[in-house]
């Protein structure tokens, strides 16, 4: 990346990123934009904790508080956690299977830009008449009653970014099915590739119900449809079902790649083969499978009846089994290993007890009668933050340290990394552990304040202090990133020294065509096998050096997404009645989108070739740009 940046001007670099179809650059785009949304979501979290720091606080009004909790949840799930994980999937998975790129480089770019414009659109609601305020679950009975345009921003924004995520999911599935290097059988795939595979399958099957639900919401609010309008025969429970048929697999879409990152870390930093690789793979598949059969445990108190509740309660408890299998396999991977406590490993070790705590409270809530007591209390808030922060966010932070050298060619400071870890880890438990007790004491979720006579002051104050610790941890990480980039000390192929999988057999960052020759995979942990065999060249290759076919960059994905972005504003103001220009904006936007799709379809795009001579020159050290 940096060698390109040095050669080109700023504008040319921007243009390069806008038109790129290279999975490694798209990964950087995902990481930067996901990171920015993570900071925005974190800022919203801080505002929540400031408001709740003392009884009867008037820092935020009740309405603003509703907007902030809604945007905090929506931003963190859709615009921060998932895109950052997609960044790692994009950066690492194609390297792990020895692929030249993903199966559809053009669609990869389209997926990113759709997510990006959807996220921007959603966040513009702050400046254009108010953010959505019906919670991140956007239950229809609340959402339909919500005034202003916040809910419409939510529906349209998430529809656009959801298309982007769906495209990414299909792309990764095809990549893993079709583009594996010779010898890379399914049961030799690294765990991160496996979890990417299963998470992508979940994306494929979980996002359409959400899209359908969002369309119903749009139609109800804008075109007077009656899906959720009870007086017209509608039914708001349909939204809840559609949302959670998406929503529960969504938490596995987040946690499975996190499991994958930790699996890699445990093996690398224990200098051992993963214990029970096969069991870990099957546990991943089982979790993905069961993930679709438990959505109604979010709806125990809706009144679906004892039979439905019992079935969903049992299915939910069953998921604890494959998850438990994973935990024990990780522990047994560490057992007897030659452990090095680098920053990623510290996160991984801290993840186990944190996530288990979240899992245990999850099983508690799976008991339907008990859930009637816990429902809508801070116990739930504590639970899902333990699995999402204790699982996903710790994995994101660990993955950032682990894969930073592969993505940018420099090592983040270990010392600052440890400071980040301790602030974040202590802050996390300080914030959320005590919320279990607040919940048991009766404090409800989503209520903007509490009374001084309710006895929740001290625990809330402690929780807010914890949030401050987490914020300090994140700021140290940002400082770390800046200092590392300024120092710019380049690293080699395998900066951790104990890399086991294919991504550590290639330069950091890799050349834009990835492996000059496709590697031959001789077993699980292929790079480790070559190391143990004393292979000086790093890998055995499956083909002689020859011309490489590469896809052309294109601005079309950006334009397609921009068209959707413009059309959304038209849809937003369409039925106000007093804005005749809205229809024109809607049509122009859709015209741009479909016009550029047609252009893409009709114009041949055959890509270009890198010749053998160029590759040989590249190998001597020099040009990594190639244009």
């Amino acid at each position, binding site marked *: 990346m940096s060698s390109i940046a040095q050669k080109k001007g700023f504008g040319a670099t921007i243009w390069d990123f806008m038109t790129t179809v290279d999975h490694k650059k798209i990964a950087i785009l995902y990481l930067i934009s996901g990171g920015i949304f993570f900071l925005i979501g974190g800022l919203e979290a801080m505002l929540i904790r400031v408001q709740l720091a003392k009884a009867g606080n008037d820092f935020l009004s009740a309405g603003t508080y509703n907007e902030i909790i809604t945007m905090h949840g929506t931003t963190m799930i859709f615009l921060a956690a998932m895109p950052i994980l997609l960044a790692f999937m994009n950066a690492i998975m194609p390297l792990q299977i020895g692929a030249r790129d993903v*199966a*559809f480089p053009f669609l990869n770019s389209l997926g990113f830009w759709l997510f990006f414009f959807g996220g921007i659109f959603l966040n513009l609601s702050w400046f254009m008449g108010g953010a959505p305020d019906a919670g991140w679950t956007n239950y229809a009975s609340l959402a339909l009653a919500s005034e202003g345009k916040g809910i419409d921003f939510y529906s349209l924004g998430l529809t656009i970014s959801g298309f982007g995520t*769906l495209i990414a999911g*299909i*792309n990764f*599935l*095809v990549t893993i*099915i*079709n*583009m594996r290097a010779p010898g890379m059988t399914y049961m030799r795939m690294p765990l991160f590739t496996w979890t990417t595979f299963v998470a992508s399958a979940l994306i*494929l*099957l979980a*996002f*359409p*119900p959400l*899209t*359908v*639900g969002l*369309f*119903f919401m749009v*139609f*109800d609010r804008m*075109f*007077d*449809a*009656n*899906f959720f*309008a009870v*007086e*017209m*025969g*509608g*039914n708001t429970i*349909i939204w809840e*079902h*559609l949302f959670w*048929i998406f929503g529960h697999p969504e938490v596995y879409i987040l946690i499975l790649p996190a499991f994958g990152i930790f699996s890699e870390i445990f093996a690398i930093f224990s200098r051992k083969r993963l214990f029970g690789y096969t069991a870990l793979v099957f546990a991943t598949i089982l979790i993905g499978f069961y993930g679709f059969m438990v959505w109604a445990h979010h709806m125990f108190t809706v009144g679906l009846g004892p039979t439905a509740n019992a079935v969903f309660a049992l299915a939910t408890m069953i998921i604890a089994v494959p998850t438990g299998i994973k935990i024990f396999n990780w522990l047994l991977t560490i057992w007897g290993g030659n452990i090095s406590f680098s920053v990623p490993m510290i996160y991984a070790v801290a993840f186990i007890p944190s996530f288990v705590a979240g899992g245990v409270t999850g099983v508690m809530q799976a008991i339907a009668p008990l859930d009637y007591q816990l429902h809508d209390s801070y116990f739930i808030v504590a639970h899902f933050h333990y699995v999402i922060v204790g699982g996903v966010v710790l994995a994101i932070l660990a993955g950032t340290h682990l894969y930073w050298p592969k993505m940018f060619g420099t090592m983040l400071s270990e010392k600052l990394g440890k400071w980040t870890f301790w602030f974040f880890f202590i802050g996390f438990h300080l914030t959320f552990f005590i919320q279990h007790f607040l919940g048991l004491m009766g404090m409800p979720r989503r209520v903007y304040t509490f009374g001084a006579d309710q006895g929740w002051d001290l625990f809330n104050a402690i929780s807010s202090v914890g949030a401050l610790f987490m914020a300090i941890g994140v700021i140290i990480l940002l400082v770390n990133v800046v200092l590392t980039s300024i120092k710019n000390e380049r690293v080699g192929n395998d900066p951790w020294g104990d890399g086991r999988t294919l991504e550590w057999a290639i330069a950091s960052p890799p050349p834009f065509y990835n492996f000059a020759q496709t590697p031959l995979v001789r077993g699980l942990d292929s790079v480790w096998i070559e190391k143990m065999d004393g292979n000086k060249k790093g890998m055995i290759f499956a083909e002689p050096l020859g011309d490489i076919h590469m896809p052309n960059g294109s601005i079309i994905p950006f334009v397609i997404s921009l068209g959707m972005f413009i059309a959304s504003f038209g849809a937003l103001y369409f039925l106000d009645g007093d804005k005749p220009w809205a229809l024109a904006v809607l049509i122009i936007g859709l015209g741009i989108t479909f016009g550029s799709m*047609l252009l893409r*379809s*009709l114009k*041949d795009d*055959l890509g270009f070739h890198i010749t053998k001579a160029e590759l040989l020159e590249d190998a001597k050290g020099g040009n990594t740009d190639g244009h």
Partner: protein
Amino acid sequence: MDINQKYTPQSWPEHPETATMEGKNKFIGFWLLLAAETVTFASLFATYLALKDKGPSGMEFSAAGLYELPLVFAMTMILLTSSLTSVYAMYHMKNHNFKAMQAWLGITVLLGATFLGLEIYEFNHYVHLGFGYTNSAFSSAFYTLVGTHGAHVLFGLSWFIALMLRNAKRGLNMYNAPKFYLASLYWHFIDVVWVFIFTVVYLMGVIG
């Protein structure tokens, strides 16, 4: 892949749609997209069934009294036939007979357009009866389910037409063969969805 390479029926591969890496990727990717489409329609069907005949008190329309089966039966036959003609088109595509493929695709497009015309007539007819989109939960669910299918038909027709016009002069090659194949796969999917709509919406609707 050389786009200018000329093929004869003898040198043309048996499965041109998956003969290149791009073709293989598109083939798998498109089947996966159809999986996502299946879930989309499953959600729409479930919603329709939940909201069937539901409306404000005193609602005038119910499924049993509204649907007109003869028209819908004719639409069904036309769409099913168009699926058959698209199979003929793909048969000729695999035999590298470009003109015959174009001709059968042309017939497919005509049948599809007829279907779409009849669907628009049907909707227009219902609206004139007073069964509008905003009347009841039932009407919203009906128009959304069947209309989403209609939008898919429209997209499929546009796709066929764009491919036929774009490649009219240059014939079949390894670059566009997967495109023709996928468009026809999409057309079959639309057809299968309609079979379910005919059964679940219309037949079960008339039974009551």
